[in-house]
């Protein structure tokens, strides 16, 4: 299936979850905020949430800022 991650198209295997996507991208779940189609997901549910074709994901984190 195809999803958009941070503005980039990306194809994932069926059954992919947020957790598996983060693992694939080598990102720590606890440091990453995930917005899916305008909803921000709770960190605890990253394992359950299955991605769907056409999902638009924003993977965001806090960085240094003034």
């Amino acid at each position, binding site marked *: 299936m195809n999803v958009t*991650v*941070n*503005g*980039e198209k990306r194809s994932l295997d069926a059954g992919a979850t947020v957790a598996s996507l983060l693992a694939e*991208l*080598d*990102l*720590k779940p*606890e*440091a*990453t*905020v995930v*917005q899916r189609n305008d909803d*921000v997901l709770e*960190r605890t549910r990253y394992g359950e949430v299955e991605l769907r074709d056409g999902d638009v994901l*924003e*993977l*965001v*984190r*806090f*960085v*240094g*800022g*003034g």
Partner: protein
Amino acid sequence: MTSDPLVIAGRSFSSRLMIGTGKFPSSQSLRDAVEASGSEIITVALRRVDLSKGETDDIMSALDPKRHLILPNTSGARTADEAVRLAKLARAAGLEPWVKLELTPEPRYLLPDGLETLRAAEILVKEGFVVLPYIQADPILAKRLEEVGTATVMPLGAPIGSNRGVRTRDLIRIIIEQSNIPVVVDAGLGAPSHAAEAMEMGADAVLVNTALADAADHGAMAKAFAMATEAGRIAFRAGMGPERDAAEASSPLTGFLFDSK
């Protein structure tokens, strides 16, 4: 100074120095600055993960939510709408509903857009956020923001990162005179003396970032700003003397020796 807390939106803080976390060369240097500053309000930004980079340092590891109010800014937003979305995203990500509202459409001087800032402030206040808006030193705008319910105003002393000091002093003075909410001088403070000057003028707090990141010894500079900020506050409360045109002798002008009567 616990007898003289800074109160924002009903919450008390013993430190009047807020710091930003940008541009530090390493997590350790940031940790040193955070530690030495004694700051209780620390700003962070929200950015997309760079997928090409993979995992990087996690800024949050340098902060302790128990001791620090982590204040997300809306840097990167060019419109009220974008700023509101960033604020909500930060809150949804688990931070408290506080936001440093920062709307800087123009990249060279990064000056805040008063109109969009006011517009965003109205929305965010209605949404229940504690809003700390970054603004130019415009006393009329400061009043408008107070009227829509922001928790503070944060007028700039000089452009972000310029280290030029309180160049807007004439207007900051007016804002302080007219404001009923805390005035936090933000941006442009490049030396402890700048922070002290702002506090001596009666500012309630200051926010510093670049001056700390610029330093060779980040921890030492953070300590210096903390001391100077407190010194300026103490002096403001202790009642300063007037500026004088002529001299006023500090030694007696009578009882000189060698005078015969």
